[in-house]
């Protein structure tokens, strides 16, 4: 943590999922898939709470780690610690692209089959599966 009066020069990022704390890193920048679009975060940000949608989270500017993340939030504490809380997260390098592609295809096929029926919870689940598959594919490719 930076001393009072000076601007912090690094970000203290914690990536938390229901399976545990996935990453805890000190880094210089963070790019996240916000609900309103992708944004980059630099040290010294004002306290903020923002919603995330499925996409690619990049920790670091020079030393980059790409994660596929699903819905969640990002919170910048007054102490400048950053908590990224997402329901699922996987490192881009650990993505099984073939499974992700298969999931994407299966999801799209199901969506097509759905046709004109009124949308309900099951429909939203299909949409989520597609978004999560796409996020994993995006995170795996550079």
């Amino acid at each position, binding site marked *: 943590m930076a001393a009072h009066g000076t601007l912090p020069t690094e970000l203290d990022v914690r990536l*938390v999922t229901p399976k*545990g704390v996935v990453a805890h890193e000190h880094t210089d920048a963070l790019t996240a898939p916000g*609900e309103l679009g992708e944004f980059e975060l630099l040290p010294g940000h004002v306290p*903020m*709470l923002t919603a995330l949608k499925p996409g690619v989270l990049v920790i670091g500017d020079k030393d980059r780690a790409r994660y596929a993340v699903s819905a969640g*939030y990002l919170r910048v504490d007054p102490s400048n610690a950053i908590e990224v809380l997402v*329901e699922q997260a996987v490192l881009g390098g650990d993505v099984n692209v073939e499974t992700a592609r298969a999931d994407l295809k299966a999801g799209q096929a199901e969506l097509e089959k759905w046709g004109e029926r009124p949308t309900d*919870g099951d429909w939203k689940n299909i949409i989520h599966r597609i978004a999560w598959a796409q996020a994993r594919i995006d995170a795996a490719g550079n």
Partner: protein
Amino acid sequence: MPSLKAIRTRIGSVKNTRKITRAMKLVSAAKLRRAQEAIVAARPYANSLTQVVSELAQVAGTESHPLFEDRTAKADHASKKAAIVVFSADRGLAGAFNSSVIKKVEAAVESELAGFGEISLRIIGKKANGHFTRRNANIASYDAAPIGATALQLARETATRIIDDFLSGKVDRVYMVYNEFRSAISQGVTLKQVLPVVPEAVASDAAAGSGIDYVYEPDKQTLLANLVPLYVQIVLYRAALESIASEFGARMTAMENATKNAGDMIQRLTLQYNRARQASITKELAEIVGGAEALKG
């Protein structure tokens, strides 16, 4: 009195059973440990999310999101609808694990939820499904019991379904029944309300923390709309994990008892076997003595 050979075969089969129950106990113990680790791993996520949702609910007000709204007060008696998410297992041999869940659901329908005109079930696990299908209960969905790796997805999809039912007015209240994990030897069935969400009271130090001016992006309402479903998911996820851990705990206890009983039975049978053997030796001796006496005469 069974023959010597019959007793010997019986002892052999009980010994085999004991081997199986002992192995099942060891397997359950190992799986229980992993299930407990999953519960611990979910804690930071659950705590953070709970705190953020509570804080948001406090600053935005509980009327700010439809999932907080309790409609049961307004609706008239007969039109009130409830759903119960039932967590059971796919397999038995776990003591009263499944039957106590089923009993709790049936008891709740009779008492706590008697005020609802219609009650539907969202069942997880083969055992409860079999029971309620045979009784023609109103089953809205059925999923196989989760293992550690599939619990999160099951929780997400179940959450999405019940939230959609709730928002579209198909149900006015959603409960869940699951085996709460207290310790490896103690589990208890509980009935909990899932929807509408009752935000936990923010702890006093957290309340002081919420005095900070956060920049909310998008606005608080949209944030709540994004985060409350995640909160419902984690509630179900924790219940699923506790149910898994309870199942292994219950199976471990059941198998330990079975192993002990098999041991007792082996001891009893061995005693019986020895007595029968001695009886036959005594009989043979008596015959020999009797024969010798007869020759003397």
